C-alpha cells in the first residue's frame, strides 16, 4: 500500500501538474473545463483527472482519447457512450453505471487535438505504470518502449527502483537500454547493447539486427551487437525448449490421468478393460451435465464435477464388474472382447442421449489465460492446472493403495487371492471396489479432458490405445512406472513433433513402444517376485 502511494506521489511530481488531492470537486472542475471550446482549457482538465485519485480516472482518460466521452447538447452534461455490439449504451462517467434511456438525447463528441492526444497517452501510461496489477504495468512499459522522451525515461528509472515484478523490471531495463542505443557516446551504446543481450523483448532483437546491418555503426558496436544477438538467440532456444518440455509434460499428464485408472484395473487386477476410454467419456459428459445444471457458476460446477464424475464412472465400473467381468476372471482374451462390447454400447448410449455432436464445456475464468514467465515463454494456465491435478490424483491414489485398509486388501488379493481369502478378506467385494476405484479415476480424468477438448462420443477411443501403451511401457502393476512412462512419452511426443509432424511423431512413439516391449516385455519397471507369473 505504501508502495502504491509513493509511486502515486512520484507520478504527481513528474507530471509537474498542479498538485491535487483526491477531491471530487477537482473532477467537477475538470468536467466543466472539458466542456470548454478552447483546447488549452480542455488540456488543463487532463492533469486534474489524472491526479484526482478517482478509481476510474484512467478509464476516463482512455474514453476521452477514444472519443467515447460525449456532451449533451441541451444541458452540456458529460456522458460515456460505450459501443456494446450494435447498440450504444450510456454510462455515467464517474460511476460507470448505466444511465436510463430517458436521459438520452442529442450528443456531440468531445473533440481533442494532437497535443492533447500525446498528453493523454502519457498520462494514461504513467497511471498504468503506477497500477497495482503487474500485467497492467508490463503493458504500459511495452507501450512506451522505443518512444521514450527524457521525462518518461526518468519516470521509468524511478519505477525501476521500486519495481517488485521481475518481468516488469526486465521490460523497463530493455526500454531504457533501447533509449541509450541512440546516445552518441560509444561506451553508453556498448553498455546498452550488452544489457539488451539479456532481453527477450522482440523490439530488442529488431534494433540489434538493424545495428548489425547498419553502415554507420562502428566495428566495436557491430561486434557487441552480434554478440548480444547470439545471446538472445540462445536464450530464445532455451525458452523454446522449456516450452516444448511444458507441452510434453502437459500431454504426459493427460496420458497419466488416462492411464492410472487402467493401472489399477489392468495393472493390479489384471483385467483388460477396453471400456476404460468410455468411462473417461462418461466423466466428461458428467462435467457437461453438471455445468448445464449450474450454468452461472462455472468454477463451482467444475469442482462439483470431480466427485460427481468419480461416482458416476465408479458406479458404472462396479456394474460392469458385477455384471460381466466377474464371470470372466482368468480368461483375459474373453474379458477384452466383452469389455469392448460394453464400450460400443456406452458410446451408442451417449450418442442416443446427447446426440452424436460434440459438446463444449466452458472453462472457468481462473483456468483460462496464460502465465507469462518472460517475453519468449508463456504457459497456458489450464494445462498447468491439469498437470497439478494429475499429480494430485496420482498422490491420492498412491495414498489410498498404500495407507488405507482398502488398499491393503486390494494388494493382498492381487498378490495371492487364496491366501487373502483365508485371512478373511472378502475378495469378491474387494474386486468390485477396486474396479470401481479404477473406473472412478477414469471418470475424474474425463473431467480434466473436458477442459482440453470437445466432449463427444469418441472421446475415449482416442485414448484407449495410448493408455494401454503407457501402462505396458511403465510396467504392469507399478503406479510409479505409469507416472514416469506417461510423462516421458508425452515429452518424447512433443520433442519429436517439430521435425516429424504430429502424426508421424505419434507413429514413431508407437513403434518405439512396440520395439521396447519386444526387448523388455514387462515394461520399464517390472514387477518382481512370485506374484509375477500368477
Amino acid at each position, binding site marked *: 500500500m505504501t508502495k502504491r502511494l509513493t509511486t502515486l506521489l512520484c507520478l504527481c511530481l513528474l507530471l509537474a501538474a498542479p498538485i491535487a488531492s483526491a477531491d471530487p470537486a477537482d473532477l467537477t472542475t475538470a468536467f466543466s473545463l472539458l466542456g470548454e471550446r478552447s483546447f488549452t482549457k480542455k488540456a488543463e482538465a487532463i492533469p486534474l483527472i489524472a491526479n484526482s485519485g478517482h478509481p476510474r480516472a484512467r478509464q476516463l482518460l482512455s474514453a476521452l482519447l477514444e472519443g467515447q466521452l460525449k456532451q449533451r447538447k441541451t444541458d452540456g452534461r458529460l456522458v460515456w457512450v460505450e459501443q456494446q455490439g450494435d447498440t450504444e449504451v450510456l454510462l455515467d462517467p464517474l460511476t460507470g453505471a448505466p444511465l436510463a434511456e430517458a436521459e438520452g438525447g442529442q450528443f456531440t463528441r468531445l473533440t481533442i487535438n494532437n497535443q492533447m492526444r500525446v498528453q493523454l497517452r502519457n498520462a494514461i501510461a504513467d497511471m498504468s505504470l503506477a497500477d497495482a496489477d503487474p500485467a497492467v504495468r508490463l503493458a504500459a512499459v511495452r507501450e512506451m518502449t522505443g518512444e521514450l522522451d527524457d521525462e518518461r525515461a526518468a519516470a521509468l528509472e524511478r519505477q525501476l527502483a521500486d519495481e517488485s515484478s521481475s518481468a516488469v523490471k526486465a521490460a523497463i531495463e530493455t526500454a531504457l537500454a533501447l533509449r541509450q542505443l541512440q546516445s552518441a557516446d560509444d561506451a553508453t551504446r556498448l553498455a546498452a547493447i550488452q544489457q539488451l543481450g539479456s532481453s527477450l523483448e522482440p523490439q530488442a532483437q529488431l534494433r540489434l539486427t538493424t545495428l548489425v546491418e547498419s553502415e554507420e555503426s562502428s566495428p566495436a558496436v557491430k561486434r557487441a551487437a552480434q554478440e548480444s544477438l547470439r545471446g538472445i538467440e540462445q536464450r530464445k532456444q532455451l525458452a523454446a525448449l522449456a516450452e516444448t518440455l511444458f507441452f510434453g509434460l502437459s500431454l504426459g499428464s493427460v496420458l497419466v490421468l488416462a492411464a492410472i485408472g487402467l493401472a489399477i484395473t489392468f495393472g493390479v487386477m489384471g483385467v483388460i478393460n477396453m471400456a476404460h476410454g468410455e468411462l473417461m467419456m462418461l466423466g466428461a459428459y458428467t462435467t457437461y451435465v453438471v455445468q448445464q445444471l449450474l450454468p452461472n457458476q462455472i468454477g463451482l460446477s467444475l469442482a462439483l464435477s470431480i466427485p460427481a464424475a468419480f461416482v458416476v464412472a465408479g458406479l458404472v465400473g462396479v456394474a460392469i464388474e458385477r455384471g460381466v467381468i466377474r464371470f470372466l476372471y482368468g480368461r483375459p482374451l*474373453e474379458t*477384452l472382447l*466383452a469389455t469392448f462390447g*460394453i464400450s460400443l454400447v456406452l458410446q451408442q448410449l451417449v450418442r442416443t442421449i446427447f446426440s452424436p455432436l460434440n459438446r463444449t464445456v466452458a472453462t472457468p475464468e481462473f483456468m483460462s489465460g496464460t502465465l507469462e514467465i518472460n517475453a519468449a515463454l508463456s504457459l497456458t494456465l489450464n494445462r498447468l492446472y491439469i498437470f497439478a491435478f494429475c499429480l494430485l490424483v496420482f498422490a491420492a491414489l498412491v495414498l489410498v493403495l498404500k495407507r488405507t485398509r482398502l488398499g491393503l486388501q486390494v494388494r493382498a488379493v492381487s498378490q495371492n487371492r487364496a491366501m487373502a481369502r483365508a485371512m478373511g478378506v472378502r475378495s469378491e467385494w474387494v474386486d468390485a471396489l477396486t474396479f470401481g476405484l479404477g473406473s472412478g479415476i477414469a471418470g475424474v480424468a474425463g473431467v480434466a479432458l473436458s477442459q482440453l477438448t470437445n466432449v463427444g462420443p469418441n472421446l475415449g477411443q482416442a485414448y484407449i490405445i495410448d493408455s494401454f501403451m503407457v501402462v505396458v511401457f511403465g510396467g504392469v502393476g507399478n503406479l510409479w512406472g505409469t507416472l514416469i512412462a506417461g510423462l516421458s512419452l508425452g515429452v518424447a511426443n512433443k520433442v519429436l513433433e517439430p521435425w516429424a509432424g504430429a*502424426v508421424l511423431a505419434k507413429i514413431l512413439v*508407437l513403434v518405439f513402444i512396440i520395439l521396447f*516391449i519386444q526387448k523388455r516385455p514387462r515394461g520399464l519397471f517390472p514387477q518382481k517376485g512370485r506374484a509375477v507369473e500368477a
Partner: protein
Amino acid sequence: MILELLKNDRGGRNLLSVLAIVAILVPVCNLLIPADNPLHISTYSVTLMGKYLTYALLAVAVDLVWGYLGILSLGHGAFFALGGYAMGMYLMRQIGDRGVYGNPELPDFMVFLNWQELPWFWQGFDQFWFAALMVLLIPGVVAFGFGWFAFRSRVTGVYLSIITQALTYAFMLAFYRNEMGFGGNNGLTDFKDLLGFSLQSDTMRVALFVASALALAVGYLACRAITTSRLGRVAVAIRDAEARARFIGYRVEEVKLWIFAFSALLAGVAGALYVPQVGIINPNEFSPLASIEMVIWVAVGGRATLYGAVVGAVLVNYAKTVFTGVMPEAWLFALGGLFVLVTLFLPQGIVGLLKRKEASA
C-alpha cells in the same frame, strides 16, 4: 487329397457344398433369369454376397491364428487393408487418363496435391501380375517382420493383442497422411476397370463373386490342410501349453511365425477381392474397431472350427446390413451386446451350440 482333408470334417463338407451350389446358382439367377422373374438376384445383392465371402475368408484367416494358435490378433484389419491397398493401387493405375484431371500417369489425388511424378512405391502397379504378387507379399512380409520381433521376444497373450492393435492403429494414422501417397483420408476410389473389363458390368460383378467364392474354398482347404498336418498339431499344442511345447523341443517361434504370416497373406487376398467389389479403400479399414469386429465374427461362429468363422462372418455382416438399413442407431447396441453375450454364454459360438444339441439328442 481334398477328399482326404474333408474326411472327418462334416462342417467343412457342408460349407464347401453350399459354396459350390451358391457359386453356380447365383450367376445363373443374375445373368440368365430376367429381371422381372422372382428368382432373379440383383447385381447389388451379388456384390453384397461377394463382400460377405471376402469377409468370410478374412474370418477364416483370423480363426487360423486365434483358434489354432491362441494368438488373438486385433490387427488383422491391417493385413486386409494392405492387400486392399495393393489392389486399389492397381485399379488406380487402370483409370489412366479417364480421371477428373485426365493425367495419364498420376492418379487424381496426386495431381491435386501438385505431385510431379509417380512415387517409387507406385511403380509397377500398372501390371496386374505385379499387383497380385504385392497383394500376397506385402501383408505376408509385414506380418513376418512383426511376428519375428514379437514371437522371438515371447510377447504373448493380452500383450500381443494390444500391440497388434497398436500396429493397425499406427498404420491407420500413417495412411491418413496425405504425404504417404495413398490418397489420405479419401483413400483410393473411382475405379474403372479390372484387367480391361469395366467394374460396373454385371458379368464383372458375377466374376468377382465367383472369384471370392473360389478364394474362400481354396483358403478354407489350405487352412484345413495346415490344421490337420503335423504343423497344425504342434500349433494346437502351443495354443494349449506354450512352455511345454517349447521344452519338448519344438521351435515355437517358427511355427507361430509361419502360420501368422500365412494368415496375414490370406487376409491380404480377402482385402484384394473386397476392394473392387465395394469400389473404395480408405484408412478406416485400418481402424482398431474394424479389426476387433473380425474377432467377433469368429467368436459368434465358433472358434477353432474354420467353418464356424465363415458362418459367423456371414451372419454378423448380414445382421449389420439389415440393422444399419432399418435402424442405424441400434447396430452398435446389437454389436456390443453380441460381444458380451457371446463371451458370457456362447464360448463355443453358434457351431458349438449346434454340436451340443446334437450330442444331447
